[in-house]
């Protein structure tokens, strides 16, 4: 059994839309930076965000978790919400996207994700 986590609930389509808004606000996909010595993964300098995620890159800020097309959730932790409420992140969103994000944050519930399937 895993810990309960704060999520935004919705249909799979609603959650996919919300995930795209979050990625837009936070600037994903993002390329990683190498730390420490030794061998590191080879990362392409640029990536268009389609196809498999190259090692060292992060495609999305968050996975959605889908039980069915009408039952999906997106983890929205307090830390993630704080990043999304930063003025730099907000400046990247349209008025309608800000409204959709605020609605999702207000509708958060706590769930245990066991039994659901992460959608990469």
């Amino acid at each position: 059994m895993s810990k309960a986590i704060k999520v935004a609930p919705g249909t799979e389509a609603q959650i996919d839309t919300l995930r795209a808004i979050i990625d837009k606000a936070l600037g994903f996909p993002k390329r990683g930076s190498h730390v420490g010595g030794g061998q590191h993964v080879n990362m392409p300098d640029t990536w268009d965000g389609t196809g498999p995620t190259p090692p060292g890159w992060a495609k999305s800020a968050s996975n959605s978790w889908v039980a069915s097309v009408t039952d999906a959730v997106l983890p929205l932790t307090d830390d993630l919400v704080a990043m999304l409420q930063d003025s730099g992140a907000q400046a990247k969103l349209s008025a309608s996207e800000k409204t959709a994000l605020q609605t999702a944050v207000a509708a958060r519930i706590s769930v245990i994700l066991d039994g659901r399937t992460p959608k990469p």
Partner: protein
Amino acid sequence: MFSRRPGARFNRGRIATSSAPVVTPLTIYGADLYQWLRGDLGITLVTGVSAWADQSGKGNNATQGTGAAQPTYTAADATLNNQPTVTGDGSNDVLSSAALTTDLATDDFYICAIVKQITWTSGDSWTSAAGSTPPRSFQNGASPAMVMTATTSVNSNSAGTLGSWFRMELLWSLTAGASYFKIGSTVVQTGNPGTGSRTSSSIFAAPAALFGNYAVAEFFVVKRAAASGGPTAGERAQINTYLQSRYPAAGF
């Protein structure tokens, strides 16, 4: 202008130093080392650790492409003499390396890791070689305890102390009841958890859920026959030397 006279020595008076070979898992196990993750080597950061590069040379890197599921990197962990460590949050963090399970699909394997359990939840996974059904998982049990499980669960009825770093060893046989789990130098359980399928190897979690909340400083996977007890006595002595040099104050 200098000229070298026959028989003369350069660097006269310089003190010669011993150059004993540096012992590492790679020098000890050579081509049988299939994955070697070390906290001070090969880290790539985005939100957290997006990639932890395999130092074995086999390219079995552990990666996570989703920001929220990337484990936290601690550059100087005060609980381990300021060594760098990687921590899974127990909620959704996991690093996966699909190629590793192909490499070791038909071999017994041995895992040695320097770890610290932070919180305990029965069922949370430490590491798994996951497939359809059943996954080969090493996870928390009740009591607290550690469990090796595939077709059968083998329960240790004991575990490492919460909040303390310890050396964890796991030998997994694909065919017979020669598997074991060790905490430090003590074998706490032997048995036969069965085979199960293997399509993706991961640390901090089984594939979909069951996320473990623990920190890792080092983690390596070696091909070793369970029937002969895993690593040889000579290999064990060298690993002890290596871990003593890496973590002198910890007594691993």
